[in-house]
């Protein structure tokens, strides 16, 4: 698995206004971990309830899969411009 991305840069430029945002993803990760720990009993109950239907197993794998997608975001770059506005998103 790749190393998780550390920063996300978002730049949106309109005709009159625009903004730039450096999002520190490395700070969001510990926060997400804390939320996950707090919610883990609820998640566990949900998984147990869903287990007979076969959805519980899938629900259990969603988190590592989502983390895998998050780690794979490193290197993503989206740059769209027209005459009036531009959107730039970069994950590093």
């Amino acid at each position, binding site marked *: 698995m*790749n190393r998780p991305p550390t920063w996300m840069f978002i730049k949106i430029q309109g005709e009159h206004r625009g903004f730039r945002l450096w999002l520190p993803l490395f700070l969001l990760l510990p926060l997400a971990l804390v939320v996950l720990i707090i919610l883990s009993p609820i998640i566990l109950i949900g998984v147990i309830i869903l287990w007979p239907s076969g*959805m519980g197993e*899938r629900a259990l*794998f*969603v988190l590592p*899969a989502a983390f*895998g*997608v998050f*780690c*794979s*975001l*490193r*290197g*993503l*770059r*989206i*740059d*769209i*411009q*027209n*005459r009036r506005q531009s959107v730039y998103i970069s994950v590093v």
Partner: protein
Amino acid sequence: MNESRKKILEMLAEKKISVDDAYRLLSVIDSTEGGRESTSKEGSAVKSKPKYLRVTVLPDPEHEHSQNVDRVNVRVPMSLIRAGIKLTSLIPSEARDKVNGALREKGIDFDMRNIKPEDIEELIGALSDLEVDVVSAKGEKVKVFVE
């Protein structure tokens, strides 16, 4: 300078061969070495794995309305595509059947259940040969390639 080139030049200096002959012989050596180099380059390109899928839409400078064209430059990591394909295994069977049905309606007879991890690598490997180059009537130059 390799031995063959040196020998040709020596023969030319000794007037054993004409300038034309020397030129012809040197070009034969060049073409042989060039071919060898390009083959080794192709070999290394096949070995190196593609890292990004690139999609670019740029205005065609030769087109008169090209200034009104939106510019798009997207770089998607191959690892994200890989992770995305792996996520398909988590799609519930009911939703998967719906997706398969929708694909069939569009004329694509493809079952998502058949995607295996080894197929993903093969698919991504095959993407390294992909190159789409389209110039539209609106003056857009669309390119899809891997790097």
